[in-house]
C-alpha cells in the first residue's frame, strides 16, 4: 500500500506546480484571450500520458509522443502543436497553441508539463483566426503538427519566424509563446525536484494512488446516484455559419450499469452530420479520452452539496469509468479533415448541457438547468493614429437554476476568466461603454431562477466593424423540472438586429451596439418561487413587474405583495399536474427551427 502521507504531499505539490505555471503565464502573456479571458490551462501528465492534476481541462500529450518517441526526448526540449486533426482530439481549434515540456529524472522522461492558450491570431481568413463562415480548416489559419520548438535549450528560430510571419499580431504571438515556454520549463524543474527527493518508484506509486482514488470516489459518491438504465437526450447548435439556421443535434444515449467495469456508456449515435461551417469537433480520437475528461466535471453536480462538488478533482481517474461510442465518420463529433472547427466551442459546451440533461432525466431533475457562458463579441478597425486594432471579448452569461440556489449572473465557465474593465477598454480602444448592466428578465423563470446575462451598450467613437461568434441566439438555455428557458443572445446596432455569427458588420461613429447575453434556464416551477424572492428581484431590477406577473404569477402593489391575488393567479396559471413534455422547456425559439413543435420527442420522461 502506498504511504497516504506521501500521496498527500505529492498531490499538494502537483497542484502547487500547476498553479505556479498558470500564474507565470497569466502575468506575462499578451493575448487578451489569455490575459483577461484566462483561456489557457496548464496540466501535468505522467510518463504514461495520464493527466494528474484536477483543476483544469487540458490538451493531450499523446500526439507529441506519437511523433517523438519518449526515448528520443532530451532535457531542454520543448514541443509545440496546434493542429486539430493531428492532436488526437486534444486541440479544438487552431488559435489554441500548445507547449509540452518533458520532465527528466536520472536521464529518463518521467512526466510532462503542458500548457495551451488561446492566442490572438494565427492567420487565416479573418482577424482573430475564427472565420464563422469557414468551409475548411485551411481558412482558419496556420496548422502546426507536433514539432520540436526548442531543441535541448536552443529555440528553433525558423519555426518561430514562420509562425509569427503567419500571424496578424506577431509580437503578441511571440510574447505568448515565450510566456508558455518559460512557465512550463519552470514547472518541469519543480517536478524534477519531487522525483529527486522521494525517488521515482515512490512518486509513481503516488501517481497511481491519486488517479485510483478519483476513480473510486466518482464511482462511490457520484455514479451510485444514477439509477441503472438507458436514457436518451439531445440538444442543438442552431447555425454553422454556412447553412440557414437549423437544428444540429448532439445526442447522448447514456447507459448505466453499476456492475460493468465502465459503469457509464456514452453513445453519441444520432448526432447530426458534420456541418459545412466551423462548428465541428474532432472528438473520436484516442478512445475519446479528451471528451471523457471534458465531460466528467458535469458528474460532480451529483454530489451532496456544492461544497463537496468543489472538492472533487477530475484527473485521468475518470477515464476508466466511461466508455464512449462514436458514430461513423462524418458527424459533428467525427468530422473528416479538412472540415472547419474554429467555433467548435458551441458543440462541446452544448455537450456538457446534453450530459446534464440526460442525467436530469435519469435522476428526476437533480441537475442544474442549462447555461451558455461563452461567445465572442468585438469590434475592429483603425484607431486615431491609423493603427489597426482588434477588441474581442468573451462575455459570460447566466448559469442555470439549481435544486439549492438560483443561477448566478454573468459568469463564465472558464475558471478565472475575466471581463475587460471599462476604464482599461476606453483607454485603449475608440469606444465608450455607456452601460454595463444585467439584462432584466433574461434569467429563466423557475422556483430557482436562472442567472441573468449582460446588457452592455458600446458607443463607437470611430467607424469600425462589429463581429460576433455566438450560438443560443435563437434557441435558449433550457429550463428543467418545470423551470422555463432563459432569454437568448441578442445584439442590436442602432436598433438593427444582428445574427449570432457576424464577421464584419459596419458600425458608424456615434452608433451604439447593444449586447444582451444569455440568461440561464430556470429550475422548478416559477409558481413555486417564494413571492418575496420575486419582489426582491423586481426591486433589484432583475425581473420586471410584467415578468413578476406573467412569468411568476406574483401580483405586486408597489413593493408590497398582494398575497391573495398572487395565490389566485398562480392557481389559474399553474399547468395541470399530469401534463407531459414539460420536464424541459426549450424556449420560444425552438418551434421556429423544429417545424412548430414545442418540444422534442426525447424531452418526455
Amino acid at each position, binding site marked *: 500500500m502506498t504511504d497516504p502521507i506521501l500521496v*498527500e504531499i505529492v498531490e499538494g505539490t502537483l497542484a502547487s506546480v500547476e498553479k505556479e505555471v498558470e500564474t507565470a503565464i497569466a502575468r506575462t502573456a499578451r493575448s487578451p484571450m489569455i490575459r483577461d479571458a484566462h483561456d489557457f490551462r496548464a496540466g501535468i501528465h505522467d510518463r504514461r500520458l495520464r493527466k494528474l492534476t484536477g483543476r483544469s481541462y487540458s490538451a493531450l500529450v499523446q500526439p507529441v509522443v506519437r511523433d517523438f518517441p519518449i526515448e528520443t526526448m532530451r532535457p531542454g526540449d520543448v514541443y509545440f502543436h496546434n493542429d486539430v486533426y493531428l492532436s488526437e482530439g486534444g486541440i479544438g481549434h487552431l488559435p489554441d497553441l500548445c507547449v509540452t515540456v518533458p520532465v527528466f529524472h536520472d536521464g529518463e522522461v518521467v512526466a510532462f508539463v503542458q500548457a495551451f492558450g488561446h492566442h490572438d491570431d494565427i492567420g487565416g481568413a479573418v482577424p482573430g483566426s475564427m472565420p464563422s463562415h469557414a468551409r475548411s480548416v485551411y481558412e482558419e489559419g496556420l496548422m502546426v503538427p507536433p514539432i520540436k520548438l526548442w531543441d535541448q535549450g536552443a529555440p528553433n528560430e525558423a519555426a518561430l519566424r514562420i509562425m509569427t510571419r503567419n500571424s496578424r499580431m506577431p509580437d503578441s504571438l511571440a510574447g505568448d509563446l515565450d510566456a508558455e515556454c*518559460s512557465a512550463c520549463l519552470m514547472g518541469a524543474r519543480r517536478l524534477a525536484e519531487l522525483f529527486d527527493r522521494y525517488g521515482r518508484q515512490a512518486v509513481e506509486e503516488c501517481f497511481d494512488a491519486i488517479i485510483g482514488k478519483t476513480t473510486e470516489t466518482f464511482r462511490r459518491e457520484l455514479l451510485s446516484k444514477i439509477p441503472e438504465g438507458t436514457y436518451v437526450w439531445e440538444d442543438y447548435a442552431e447555425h454553422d455559419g454556412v447553412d440557414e439556421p437549423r437544428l444540429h443535434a448532439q445526442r447522448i444515449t447514456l447507459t448505466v450499469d453499476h456492475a460493468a467495469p465502465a459503469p457509464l456508456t456514452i453513445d453519441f449515435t444520432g448526432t447530426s452530420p458534420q456541418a459545412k461551417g466551423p462548428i465541428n469537433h474532432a472528438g473520436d480520437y484516442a478512445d475519446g479520452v479528451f471528451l471523457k475528461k471534458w465531460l466528467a*466535471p458535469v458528474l460532480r453536480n451529483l454530489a451532496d452539496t456544492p461544497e463537496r462538488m468543489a472538492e472533487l478533482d477530475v484527473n485521468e481517474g475518470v477515464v476508466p469509468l466511461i466508455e464512449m461510442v462514436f458514430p461513423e465518420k462524418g458527424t459533428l463529433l467525427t468530422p473528416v479533415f479538412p472540415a472547419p472547427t474554429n467555433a467548435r466551442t458551441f458543440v462541446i459546451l452544448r455537450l456538457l448541457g446534453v450530459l446534464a440533461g440526460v442525467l436530469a432525466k435519469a435522476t428526476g431533475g437533480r441537475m442544474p438547468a442549462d447555461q451558455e*457562458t461563452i461567445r465572442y463579441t468585438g469590434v475592429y478597425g483603425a484607431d486615431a493614429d491609423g493603427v489597426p486594432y482588434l477588441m474581442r471579448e468573451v462575455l459570460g452569461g447566466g448559469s442555470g437554476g*439549481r435544486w439549492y440556489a438560483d443561477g448566478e449572473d454573468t459568469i463564465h465557465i472558464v475558471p478565472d476568466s475575466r471581463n475587460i474593465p471599462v476604464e482599461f477598454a476606453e483607454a485603449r480602444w475608440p469606444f465608450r461603454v455607456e452601460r*454595463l448592466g444585467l439584462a432584466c428578465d433574461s434569467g429563466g423563470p423557475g422556483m430557482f431562477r436562472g442567472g441573468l446575462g449582460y446588457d452592455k451598450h458600446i458607443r463607437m467613437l470611430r467607424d469600425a466593424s462589429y463581429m460576433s461568434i455566438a450560438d443560443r441566439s435563437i434557441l435558449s438555455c433550457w429550463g428543467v423540472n418545470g423551470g422555463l428557458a432563459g432569454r437568448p443572445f441578442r445584439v442590436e446596432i442602432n436598433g438593427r438586429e444582428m445574427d449570432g455569427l457576424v464577421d464584419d458588420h459596419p458600425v458608424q461613429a456615434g452608433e451604439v451596439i447593444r449586447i444582451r447575453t444569455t440568461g440561464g434556464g430556470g429550475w422548478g416551477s416559477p409558481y413555486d418561487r417564494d413571492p418575496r424572492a420575486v419582489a426582491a428581484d423586481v426591486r433589484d431590477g432583475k425581473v420586471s413587474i410584467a415578468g413578476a406577473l406573467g412569468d411568476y404569477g406574483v401580483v405586486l402593489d408597489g413593493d408590497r405583495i398582494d398575497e391573495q391575488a398572487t395565490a389566485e393567479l398562480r392557481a389559474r396559471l399553474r399547468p395541470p399536474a399530469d401534463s407531459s413534455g414539460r420536464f424541459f422547456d426549450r424556449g420560444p425559439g425552438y418551434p421556429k427551427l423544429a417545424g412548430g413543435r414545442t418540444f422534442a420527442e426525447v424531452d418526455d420522461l
Partner: protein
Amino acid sequence: MRSVRIGVDTGGTFTDVVAVDERTGEIVTTKTPSTPANPADGFMAGIAKLGPLDVSSIVHGTTVATNRLLEDRIGDLGLITTEGFEFILEIARQSVPDGYGNSYFWVKPPRIVPVHLVKTVGGRLDHLGGEVRPFNEEQAAEVARWFRSKGVTAIGVCFLHSYANPEHERSMREVLWREHPEAVISLSSDVLREYREYERAVTTLVDAAVKPAMRGYIANLSTRLGMPFSVMKSNGGVLSAREVVNQPITTVLSGPAAGALGAALIASTAGHPSVITLDGGGTSTDVAVVVDGEPSITTEGSIGRYPCKIPMIDIVTVGAGGGSIAWISPEGTLKVGPKSAGADPGPLCYGRGGAQVTVTDAHVLLGRIPPHLLGGEIPLDVDAARAGIEALAGKLGLSPERTATGILEISAFNQSNAIRQLTVKRGLDVRDFPLVTFGGSGPLLACRLIDILGLPAVVVPPDPGNVSAFGLLTVDVKNDYVRTYVTRDLDLAAAGEIFRELEREAAEALDREGFDDPVYARSADLRYYGQAYEVRVPAPAGELDEAWRAEVTGRFHDAHEKLYGYAYRDDPRHGIEWVNLRVSGIGPITRPVVRRRPPVADPPPPGVRRVHFEEAADTPIHQRAALGPGAVVRGPAVIEEYGSTIPVHPGFTATVDDYGNVEVRRD
C-alpha cells in the same frame, strides 16, 4: 523615569506590548488577553502592566478593521456610481474561482453592497479626465436624500475615470455634505487613484465600511490614553491616529506587516539582509519576503474575498498553524488544515473539549514540545493527544508515531508550497534565503523547512512571540500616492508635473505629522504593451530627462527578466507602456538598537525527555535562557522558552549568535 517608546499589537488572542528604552535600547515585554468586545480595554491593561514610565510615543497595530471584514460585520453600506453601472458589484469580473466546471454549482457570495443599496448619478468623464457629460446635481441630491431616508450613513463613491479627474466625485461629496450631513464618505479618487473600476470600487467600499468603527475606536482610545499615538499601516509605515481615521483601509492587514518588519530588522542586524519571514500562529501562518531589508510590497492584495488594491506588504497567509486539524478525506488520504481548532476549544491536549487531532497534538505526542504551555502555566494532556492520534492511525493503517510525523510533514509541505508560490511570483530562488521564524508555532518546523526547501538556515529571534509588537517600533511614517497615466510615449514634462503634485500632497501630510525633513521615494509601474499586469520599479529623484527615462526603462527590463526569465531590452517590436506613477512620502524615525547579549554565567545542564524524531530516544532539553552567545546545540535536541519551542532534528545544529538569535543549519 525612563523614556520609552511602546508598541502595542492587538492580536486575536493576546495583546502584546513591547517597550524600548530610548537611551539603552533595553526591551521590556508583556502580554495580556485581548478584549474583542472593546479592544481598547486590553490595550490599556497592557500599558498599565508595564508600570509608570515616561512614554515618548506609542505605535499601535490593530485588527479592528480587518476583523470587521473577515467576520462580515459591516453595517449598511451604500455605493454611488456612474449611471448605467448599478450592477458593477454583481457583475464583478465575471470570474468563477478554482476549477473548470464550477460554473454549474458555484454560489456567488454576497456582494459588499447589495444591489438595492447601489445608486447611480449622471455625468461622464473619459479616460483622460475630459468631461463627456456634466455631473447631474439634481440626481445627486435625490440619491443623497434617498440614502438619508434609508439611514445609510457609510457611503462609497466611485465614478468612472475619477482616477484621471476627481471633480465629479468631489461634487458628489459636496452634495452629500449638504443633503446628508451624517454620512461618512469615501471617494475612490482619494482612496486609490488608479484605474480598473471594479477593484477601485471595492477598495473604496472597504474603506467606507471600516471607517465608522475605526473612528469610534480611535476616538475612544485617544480619550483614554490622553496622548497622541500612531497606527501601523499595511504598507509598512505608520501614521498618526488623527490622520489614519481618514483612510482606515490603509490599516487592514497591518499586524502581519509589523511582524515582517520586526523580523527584517532583527535578521539584518544579525547579518541577513534578505530573508523570508514566517509568522506561525494558532490558525494560520503568514509568510513574507524581505530583500535588502525591505519587505516586498503588492497592490494586488485582498482582505477575505474583497480585493484591496492599496499598497501593502506582500504577505501570503496559509491555513497551517498549531491548531490546524488533521483529518481523513472521503478518498482516504490524510489532510491537515485549513480548518483549525483555534485557541478554543483548541487541540485535544488542551483538554478543553477539542475533539479533533491538531498539529500541536502531533508535536506533543512525539515529545517535541513540553507537556505544558507558557513555561508551565498551562499543562497539556498527552494521553488525550495520543488517543486521538491512535484512532486516526488505526484508520490509516499506520503507527501513531508515523501518523504524527506525517501530520507534521504535510503541515511543513503546506507551508513550503506557500513560500514557494510567494518566491516564484517574485522570481526569487528560495535557496538563497534564510528563513526567520517567529510566533508561537513558527519555529517548530524549522528543520523540516530547511530540508524541503533547501534553505541555508533558519533564524529564530529571542522572544519569538513578541516580534510583531517589536516590529511596530521599527517603522517610519509612510504615505503612498498614485496617479494612473497610461501612455506608450511618456511626456517627461507631464510626468514631472505629476510627480511634483504627488510630492506636494506627500509633503503636506508629513508636515502635519511634524516632519520637516521628509524623504520621497518615486516609483513607476510599467509593462510591455499588451500585457495586463505591471511591474513596479523605483524611479530616481530629480529632474526628468532622457537619462531618467533610460534609467527607469532599464530597471523595468531588468526586473521583468528577474521576475519572469525574459525581457525585450533591445527589441523595438516590444514597446513599453507606462501605467502608474507613484510617490511614497517617508518621515524617518530612529530605529531601536538590537543589543548584543552578554554571556550566560554558569548555565544549568540540559534536562532530558523522550522525544521521537526518527525514533524515540532520550533527548537533551535546553532552556533557551541558558544558551549564551556562541552556544552550540547538536541535534537531536529541543530548545525551549516561554511561549515557543525549537526542535533540533538529528543532522542539524543550532548556534546562538551575538544578539541571542538561534540559527539552525543542516550539518
